[in-house]
Each structure stands twice: as structure tokens, then as C-alpha cells.
């Protein structure tokens, strides 16, 4: 019950502080830029033709759009949640809340649920906007859309949970740095792994695997790509963040799921135990 009160409060806060409006307006601007870019590229292709397989170009454009979406959702997840626990501890807003006849973990769980819902809805709106536009203009669709989006959603939830977990122990700024740096390390590890995959260097691949274990977000993005693209788009030309030369195994999904659950449990425990 207290969990729902806090969830409602958290969503109302996002609304009152104009976070929702700004995010929606900027999301619309993002989709507009994509649509305009897509329009001109498509006109070029149709005018001159013979570029080869235009499906590859559409796939590449949609992948770029989704990658930008993925980064934006990660950034939004950290920004909206980074102050939520640490900020309220620092300002002592939390004191009058947790002295009520409720359990402390209900407060954090309530916040987590609200932010998780916001992050997932935002991801869905942006991704659906991109995919629908591309489909409307070109008839191009990705494979396994739901599975792929689930991987992106899981990555968003991981980073969100990390920033809420950090907020129970770290100051706001330290927490933000930690969340972004862990994400950055995973990103770099993913690149090293890909290059290692090309040149068949086992050590480089292992670095990628280890960073994926520390922070599975990048591996989940690669997994999403392999769901979307099937085997169709894997060419050396499209290496980098837009391709998954080394497809993470299904075990990685299970690992990421367990990682998420462990992170949430740690957060509930950590907040319950700490001195305020």
C-alpha cells in the first residue's frame, strides 16, 4: 500500500517538475529529426536507385535511430533517478516519510516501480515512433521486435536500478559518476570484444565478457540487435555499436535478469539498514 502511495507521488513529482513534458517534447523533436533525415535519404535512394540492397540502408537507419534511443533512455534513466534517494536523504525530505508506520523498503520499491514504468514507457514511445515511421514510409520491419525491445528495456532497468542502488549509499554526484562510468566501461568492453572477435583475439573477447558481467547493459543492446537483425546485416562495414558480430548467449539474458533482481534486493536492504 505504501509502495503505491510512493509510486504515485514519484510520478506526480515527474509531472509537476515538468520532467514528463520536457521528455515528451524532446522525444517528439528527436522523432522529427529522424523522420526528416529518413525522408531525404529515401528520396535520394528512390531517385537514383541502384544503390544495392536498399533494405540494408533502411535497416541501418533504423538501427542508428534505435541506438540513439537506447542511449537517451539510459541517460534519462540515470538523470531522473540519480537524486531520488540520495537527494531526499541529503535534504532530509525522507525523514518525515520513513518515520510513518511503513517499511523503509516500501519507499524505495515505490520509487523504483514509478521510474521503471516511466523509463519503459519512454523507450516504447520512442522506439515505436521510429519503427512505425520507417514501416509507413518504406514497409521495412525488423524481426523479433518484442524480444529486441525487451532487451533494450532490461538494459534501461539495469542502469536505473544501479543509480537507485547507488543513491542509498553515495552522494548524488558520486552516484551519477558511478552509473555513467559503469555504463561507459561496459560500452568500451563491448567495442574491445567486437574487435577481438574480428581479429580472433581471445584476450580481447574475454575483456568484453568480463565487462558484460560487471555491467550487462551493452551485451543486452547487442542481444537486441541480433534479435532485430537476425543474420541479415552482419557485415564488417557495419561493425561498431550498430552491429553484433559476437552475439551474446541466452545465458547472458538470464544473468542480466538475476543481476537486476540482486540489484533491487540490495537496494531494499541497503536503504533499510542505513542511518538517516
Amino acid at each position, binding site marked *: *500500500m*505504501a509502495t503505491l*502511495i510512493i509510486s504515485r*507521488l514519484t510520478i506526480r*513529482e515527474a509531472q*509537476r*517538475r515538468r520532467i514528463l513534458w520536457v521528455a515528451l517534447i524532446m522525444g517528439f523533436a528527436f522523432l522529427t529529426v529522424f523522420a526528416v533525415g529518413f525522408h531525404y535519404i529515401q528520396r535520394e535512394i528512390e531517385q537514383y536507385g541502384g544503390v544495392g540492397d536498399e533494405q540494408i540502408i533502411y535497416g541501418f537507419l533504423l538501427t542508428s535511430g534505435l541506438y540513439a534511443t537506447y542511449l537517451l533512455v539510459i541517460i534519462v534513466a540515470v538523470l531522473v533517478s540519480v537524486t531520488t534517494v540520495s537527494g531526499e536523504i541529503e*535534504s*532530509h*525530505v525522507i*525523514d*518525515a*516519510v*520513513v*518515520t*510513518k*508506520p*511503513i*517499511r523503509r523498503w516500501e519507499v524505495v520499491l515505490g520509487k523504483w516501480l514509478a521510474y521503471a514504468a516511466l523509463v519503459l514507457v519512454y523507450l516504447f514511445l520512442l522506439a515505436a515512433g521510429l519503427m512505425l515511421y520507417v514501416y509507413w514510409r518504406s514497409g521495412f520491419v525488423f524481426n523479433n521486435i518484442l524480444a529486441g525491445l525487451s532487451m533494450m528495456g532490461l538494459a534501461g532497468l539495469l542502469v536505473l536500478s544501479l543509480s537507485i542502488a547507488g543513491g542509498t549509499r553515495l552522494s548524488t554526484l558520486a552516484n551519477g559518476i558511478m552509473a555513467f562510468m559503469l555504463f561507459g566501461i561496459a560500452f568500451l568492453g563491448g567495442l574491445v570484444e567486437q574487435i577481438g572477435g574480428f581479429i580472433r583475439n581471445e584476450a580481447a573477447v574475454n575483456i568484453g565478457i568480463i565487462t558484460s558481467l560487471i555491467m550487462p547493459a551493452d551485451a543486452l543492446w547487442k542481444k537486441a540487435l541480433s534479435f532485430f537483425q537476425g543474420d541479415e546485416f552482419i557485415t564488417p562495414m557495419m561493425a561498431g555499436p550498430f552491429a553484433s558480430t559476437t552475439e551474446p548467449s541466452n545465458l547472458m539474458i538470464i544473468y542480466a535478469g538475476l543481476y537486476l533482481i540482486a540489484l533491487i534486493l540490495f537496494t531494499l536492504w541497503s536503504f533499510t539498514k542505513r*542511518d*538517516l
Partner: protein
Amino acid sequence: MSVPVIDAQHLRKVFGSKIAVDDLTLDVQPGEVFGFLGPNGAGKTTSIKMLLSLTSPTSGSASLLGQPLGDRGVRAKVGYLPEHFRFHEWLQAQEFLDLHGRLYGMDAPSRREAIPRLLKLVGLEDRATTKLGAFSKGMLQRIGLAQSLLNDPWLVFLDEPTSGLDPIGRRLVRDIINDLRERGTSVFLNSHLLSEVEKTCDRVSFIRSGRILQVSTLTSFEQEAFQVSIRVGQPTPELLAQLAVIGEDVHLERGGGRIRLKLRDEGRLPELAQAITTSGHALYELTPNRLSLEERFLQVVGEESNE
């Protein structure tokens, strides 16, 4: 004797190498207004936080309303106004009270009844739809006080409730505390404003360096020895000898006229006046001087620091 609403036994809190509270042992009785006094950094807020389970004690034990610390059923009957509190500033005053009412587990009808009543009590009835962000410090303190009374608590912790208030606001808080006392609510008041404490509390405790130095009732102060200053026309040694029978430490101030002495008992004041007038001396002034709480505070807390 009934079960104390607060019963703390040797509560201790250590942060790393710093002892915030060394040994907190005290009891607060039902219906009592208990003042908690001490200099900055004495461990007052940490003590309150331990009693409210915001911070866990390093050792020692305590009970609130007869239950061990942290009991959720007890928290439904406890109100708390934090020090330097800030609340969700984007909420309107009535939304804020509604939120905290929900957190107390109050149903919709009791929230609808309590919110306007409390807004009126703290003089904010015409600010119900103003956002807290637009409130002055004093108004925030009032709405915080309203928040701490939502659940008709049996015990209220007020941590510096009057620090941001003007004299009118302080008067309001004093009236609310007196009203709570009449209804049998216990109040644990942490305040720097000693004159406020003097006017509202039944008992006070002095804390320094995380230790309780003294717990006294304010009426016991009245029973203690006090100074009397007397001004008579042409004091004689015979008069002084006569006064020494009634009081102690009788001495004539240099420059004549004024005599100072100590009395053990307020009941002897009329006797003193009578002795002077029957001795044939003209009595111009007779003033009993009690130690104010502030002087007493400085005495108790100062003694310790000189050791």
C-alpha cells in the same frame, strides 16, 4: 506508575571514532511535556533519530509507548517534526497533508476531517492550495507541525519547532503544545529557545557531549534557594543580624541601601517583609530573583565544560 511513553536505557551512538551520544538514559511519562536542552553538537538530534529508528543505536535499548524501537504500530501513534525539515516543495499544502495522512494509514473520511482542522490550527487555512515551494520558513514550520499532528498522536517529537518563527508563530506553537498537554499528549521538545521551554515544559533535561547531565522539573527549580534583594532606609547591624535568622549569606552591598540574602523557601518571603517593617526600617524594595532557565543552563552545561 504508568508505563513511560519513552524509556531509554544507555542508548549510545558512535560514528567511526566520534561518539555522538554517549549514554542516553531517560524516561518521559504520559502527558508530560519534556524539554531536551543542550548546546549545538551535544547529540540532541541523534538522540531523537535513535528514538525514531532513523538511526540505529550502537548499543543500549529503548521503548516507545511500551514497545521496542522500530515497532510500526507505535509509529502510527507518534508524530515527528524534523529539524531543518524540507518537504516535497512541489506539493500544495493540502496535498502534502493528504500524502502524510495516507502514509499514516488514515482513511479518506478522517483525512478530509483532519486536514482543514489542522490547517486552521496552524493558521494556514487560506494557503491550502499554495505550493510548499512558495512558503516562508515559518510557514513551512507550521505546516510541518500540522503534519506531525495528523494522526492525533500520543507522543510528538518536535525538533526545534520555533527556530524559524516570529513571536506570533512562537506563541502559536506554545498554545498548541499547551493544548496537547491538556489532551494528554506527551511532547518531546528539543529547543534552543530556553524561554520557550521555560513556558511550556514540565521537566527538562540538560545534555552535553552525548550525556544527560541533569533532569529537573521546572517546579523543583522554584523550590530551590533563591536570591532576594532588599532596599531599606538606613540599614543597621541589628537588622542584618535579624535577617540572618531568616535567610543565609546576608550581606550589605557597598554604597549602602541594598541588602542581598538567600532564601531556601518562598514561604519565608512574607516573614522577611514583616521582620523589616516591625524593626522600624522603611522598606522600599524586596525582589526575589530566581535563576532563569538560561542561567541554569549555562551553569549546568558550563560546570561540566570547566571540569
